[in-house]
C-alpha cells in the first residue's frame, strides 16, 4: 500500500459554464460546474482541475464565484488554471477555495513568475501548465506553444519543464498537455509524458488525448505519469470515474478506492 495514482477530471470553464473544446476550438456545453464537480466527487475523483478559458474580467469574477460554490461542497483538491498572471490572481483563487493554481503562458512571458509565486504561496500550490506540440519525430522533440496552440515559442518542452520545477522555489507539479493529442481521443503522447516525467523531480499530470480507459493506464505504465487527466470521456457520460479506477486497478495500478 502506497501512494495512489490520481485520476483528475478536467473542466474547461467559460463564463461559469463547463465547456470542452475539441483541439481547443469547437466548443460544446457540458453543464453546470458545481453539479459536474459534485458528481465527480461522488464518483471518487482524486482531484478536480478547472481551466478557465474566459476572456473578460466579468467572466473571471463568475469563475471565482464558481470556485467558491464548489469549494463549499467538494472536499478534494481543486486546481484552477487559465489566465493566471500575477500574485493577485493566485491569491483570489486560493481565497475562493482553490488548492492549487496552474500557470501557463504567463510563465513564458515572465520566467521569474513561478519562483516568485512559489516563494510567496508555497511550491505545493503552484503548478506549471505546459502545452507542448511535437516538432520532430526522430529524435522526438516538443516545443511550447501559447494562445491555444497558435503561437510557437521555440522553447523545448522538456527543458522548460525542468527549468520551471528545479530549485527551492520551482513549481510543485507539472500539468503536461499534448496539443497534438488533445481532443483527438487516441491516447496520450506517451513519449512526451515519459520524457518529461523522467526529467523532472516533481509529479507529472498527463493530459490530452484520453479517449478510452486503457489510455489512462498507458499514461501511468508507459508514460510514467503520477496522475492522469481527462475531460470528455467523463463529461459526456462515456465512463464513470469508478470504471476508470477499476480499469487501472486491473492493470496493476494502485488507485484510491
Amino acid at each position: 500500500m502506497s501512494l495512489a495514482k490520481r485520476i483528475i477530471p478536467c473542466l474547461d470553464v467559460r463564463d461559469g459554464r463547463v465547456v470542452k473544446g475539441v483541439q481547443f476550438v469547437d466548443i460544446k456545453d457540458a453543464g453546470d460546474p458545481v453539479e459536474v464537480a459534485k458528481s465527480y466527487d461522488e464518483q471518487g475523483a482524486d482531484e478536480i482541475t478547472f481551466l478557465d478559458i474566459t476572456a473578460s474580467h466579468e467572466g473571471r469574477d463568475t469563475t471565482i464565484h464558481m470556485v467558491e460554490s464548489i469549494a463549499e461542497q467538494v472536499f478534494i483538491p481543486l486546481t484552477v488554471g487559465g489566465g493566471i498572471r500575477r500574485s493577485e490572481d493566485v491569491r483570489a483563487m486560493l481565497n475562493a477555495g482553490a488548492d492549487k493554481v496552474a500557470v501557463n503562458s504567463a510563465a513564458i512571458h515572465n520566467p521569474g513568475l513561478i519562483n516568485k509565486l512559489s516563494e510567496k504561496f508555497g511550491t505545493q500550490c503552484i503548478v506549471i501548465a505546459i502545452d507542448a506540440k511535437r516538432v520532430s519525430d526522430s529524435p522526438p522533440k516538443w516545443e511550447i506553444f501559447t494562445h491555444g496552440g497558435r503561437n510557437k515559442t521555440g522553447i523545448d518542452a522538456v527543458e522548460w519543464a525542468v527549468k520551471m520545477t528545479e530549485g527551492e522555489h520551482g513549481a510543485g507539479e507539472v500539468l503536461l498537455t499534448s496539443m497534438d493529442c488533445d481532443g483527438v481521443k487516441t491516447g496520450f503522447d506517451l513519449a512526451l509524458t515519459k520524457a518529461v516525467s523522467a526529467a523532472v523531480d516533481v509529479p507529472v499530470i498527463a493530459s490530452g488525448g484520453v479517449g478510452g480507459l486503457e489510455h489512462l493506464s498507458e499514461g501511468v505504465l508507459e508514460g510514467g505519469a503520477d496522475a492522469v487527466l481527462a475531460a470528455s470521456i467523463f463529461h459526456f457520460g462515456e465512463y464513470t470515474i469508478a470504471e476508470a479506477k477499476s480499469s487501472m486497478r486491473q492493470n496493476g495500478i494502485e488507485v484510491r478506492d
Partner: protein
Amino acid sequence: MAIAIIDYGMGNVRSVQKAIEHVAPNEQVFLTDNAKIINDADRVVFPGQGAMGACMQALNEHDLVGTIKQAAHEKPFLGICLGLQLLFDHSQENGGTEGLSILAGDVVHFPKNELKIPHMGWNTVKHIIDHPLWHNIEDNSRFYSVHSYYVEESDSDVVAGSTNYGIDFTCAVAKDNMFAVQFHPEKSQHDGLQLLTNFANWQV
C-alpha cells in the same frame, strides 16, 4: 462552542474553514490572527502551508507564538501540514529553521531517490495508536498529502499514525489535548471530514 482557525497568512486556510463549517454547522468558526479570539475559543486549528521559515516569520510578525503554545497545552488543538511540522524543534528547510519546540524532534527532507518530491496525493495512513480522532476511520484509509519534509520525533510515544513513501514516516502525532497531521483532512473527502468531525466532538 467556538473553533478558531489560526490565519497568519500562510497557505490555503479557506479550505480548512469551509470543511470545518461543513462538519460543525452549529458552531462559531473564526478564521483569525486575533490572540483574544484564539484564547477564548474552545478548540483551535493550526494549519499552515509553504516553507517553514516563512511560517515562523509570519507567526512572529503576527505575535502568535505564545498564543499557540498556550492553546496547544490547554484545549483541543489540531495541527495540519506545516501546523504539524511547526510543533517540533528544528527543520532542515531554508538552511535550518527553528520551530515552536512544543514537541521534541526534527523536520527533515525526504531522501533523494527515484520517488517524486513533493509527496503529493492520496496515501494510506496506518493507525499506530487508538485515538478518538481515528473514530469511524478504518486503518489504512487514504488521505491527501502534499509535502517535501516530514517529522522525525524524539519521543516515539507521540506517534499516532504513519505513512510509507519510500520510507515509513510519522504522519500523525498525539499528545494530551493535541493532535496533528501531515495530511490535509479538509481535502480528504469522507475520511477527512470524519477526522474533523471527531475533532469537533473530541472531549479531552
